[in-house]
């Protein structure tokens, strides 16, 4: 029974991982850059949501669109002013630019908000639905539902809007896209802003069960990378599968190993995938 329970928990949590990680894979898919600072936008999303809860009385989950918007704006500026300058630079410059961004964002938060952990109080925080012997945690369920809604919205946007189609065209062939009259610099800004916005959205919806502090991003780094590598860097569909898989792997491994070793299990999965199938299990363009 605990096995089935773990799978349910894993899928619910994994849905959120998918949304958090889509941003990372989207940026890579469009620009070929791994944003090492991606998890910091999760932290930003959590802080925005926490302040909206503390000062505006907004439920953290309802504040998710606000988190998205703030992160989107920051991402737009970061892409336009910083990342755009290293698009053609050697990978070492790209890596260290985003690493620099990570350091600035994390310590900026530390400086501004202090190092204490902040959590929210909600009416549904400790509630769970029981299905016979199984339990479904309400905060997990809400976070999953919000992630699902967000994922569907993204899918709809990418499929039907001009922006979405232009972005996919840019990802496939920037040169051709440019010849077709697509402003690729705009597409890159859009992709980066959208990517970090989604991650921040994911940050807001997990706030009811994860406390926020400036270093919270660090706890998600290995997890996010495992998700995208599992699904294939650059593949959005892959990130969804990868997110669910990582959620389930985590939940199952916690049945066997102490909670602190979850990252170790993820890492082994991560290295195995990199070693055996660097293009990811689902397979991607790049």
């Amino acid at each position, binding site marked *: 029974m605990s096995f089935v329970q773990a799978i349910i928990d894993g899928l619910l949590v994994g849905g959120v991982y998918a949304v958090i990680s889509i941003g990372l894979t989207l940026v890579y898919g469009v620009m070929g850059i791994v944003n090492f600072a991606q998890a910091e936008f999760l932290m930003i999303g959590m802080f925005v949501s926490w302040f909206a809860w503390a000062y505006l009385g907004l439920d953290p989950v309802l504040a998710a669109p606000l988190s998205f918007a703030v992160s989107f704006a920051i991402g737009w500026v970061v892409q336009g002013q910083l990342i755009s300058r290293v698009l053609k630079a050697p990978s070492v410059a790209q890596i260290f630019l985003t690493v620099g961004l990570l350091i600035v964002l994390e310590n900026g938060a530390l400086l501004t908000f202090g190092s204490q952990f902040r959590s929210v109080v909600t009416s549904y925080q400790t509630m769970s639905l029981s299905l016979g012997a199984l339990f479904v945690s309400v905060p997990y369920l809400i976070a999953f539902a919000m992630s699902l809604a967000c994922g569907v919205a993204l899918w709809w946007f990418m499929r039907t809007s001009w922006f979405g189609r232009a972005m996919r065209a840019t990802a496939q062939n920037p040169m051709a896209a440019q010849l077709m009259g697509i402003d690729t610099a705009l597409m890159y800004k859009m992709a980066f802003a959208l990517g970090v916005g989604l991650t921040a959205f994911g940050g807001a919806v997990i706030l009811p069960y994860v406390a926020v502090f400036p270093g919270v991003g660090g706890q998600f780094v290995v997890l996010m990378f495992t998700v995208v590598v599992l699904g294939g860097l650059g593949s959005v569909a892959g990130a969804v599968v990868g997110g669910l898989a990582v959620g389930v792997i985590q939940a199952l491994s916690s049945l066997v190993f102490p909670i602190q070793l979850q990252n170790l299990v993820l890492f082994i999965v991560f290295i195995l995938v*990199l070693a055996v199938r660097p293009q990811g299990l689902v397979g991607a363009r790049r």
Partner: protein
Amino acid sequence: MKRWLALAVLIAVAAVLPLLLSPTGYWIRVLTFTLLFAAMAQAWNLIGGLANQTSLGHAAFFGIGAYTSTILLLKFGISPWLGMFAAGALGGLAALVIAIPTLRLQGHYFALATLAFGEVMRVIANVWAPLTGGPGGLSVPFTPPSFAGYSFKQLLPHAYIALGALIIVTGIFEVIRRGAMGYRLRAIRENQAAAEVIGIDTTKVKLQTAVISGVLMAMLGTLYAQVAVFFDPDTVFSAAAISIRVALIAILGGVGTAAGPILGALFIIPVEELMNDLFSAGAAGLSQLIFGAILIAVILWKPRGFITLWDALRARFARGETR
């Protein structure tokens, strides 16, 4: 000839400098850590500069080194001098284990894999409490001061040991860079298929480089443990404070050059100390914030590091001479 003279002068200055500082004071500590981090960045420079594989996980080897010698000393009373070689062996082994699956990876993928490896070593050190003391960390036990026991009352000997380490690691770097292996590494870096076709065993060359880099990094971990006296998993296995910082020092100074890590460390470590000194009371994180901002600025402004400033200066000087 002029090069050797300059080198001799540099080493002489470095050898005299520790004597001028108060042996128990603050600046000798800064100097020791500057030399140590320069050596660490030089060890990173082998894989990051010569092989062009951006490792973000060198803290793994560093931490293994610190823990190996300290545990050997704690449990069996083995001198850290010997422990340092055990540390090197384990560090090399770890480098081999991680290099085999990640060797084929390039650029971002390699950076991701190594970053994750460092993080996992941190987790293991935190969890494996019976051996490592867990999150509480380890204190290097006090032994009567003696050179054989690697125990000193003052920091001065540590400064000289760090200087010696820097000279040795830099020497190894230069020998590799100028030798057959350096040529092979450059070939692999610039065109892997062509390198293979002209007879270079690319797998072997990359593995050798990774292992040498890991061995040196682990041995420097031992030196760190002896200076720091106390450490915990989050310090020695830190992605930000070790892995990223050593890479950053090399990059800031000029990656792939022998002088780069030294220039980088001479800038970064004292500036960091200074900022920590100025701001630590009021604002946690400010020095790191500035440090990150400098990193971004250097990447955007001088992607090849300070060494290019030096080259530009020298070029201007040379032009002036010929006129």
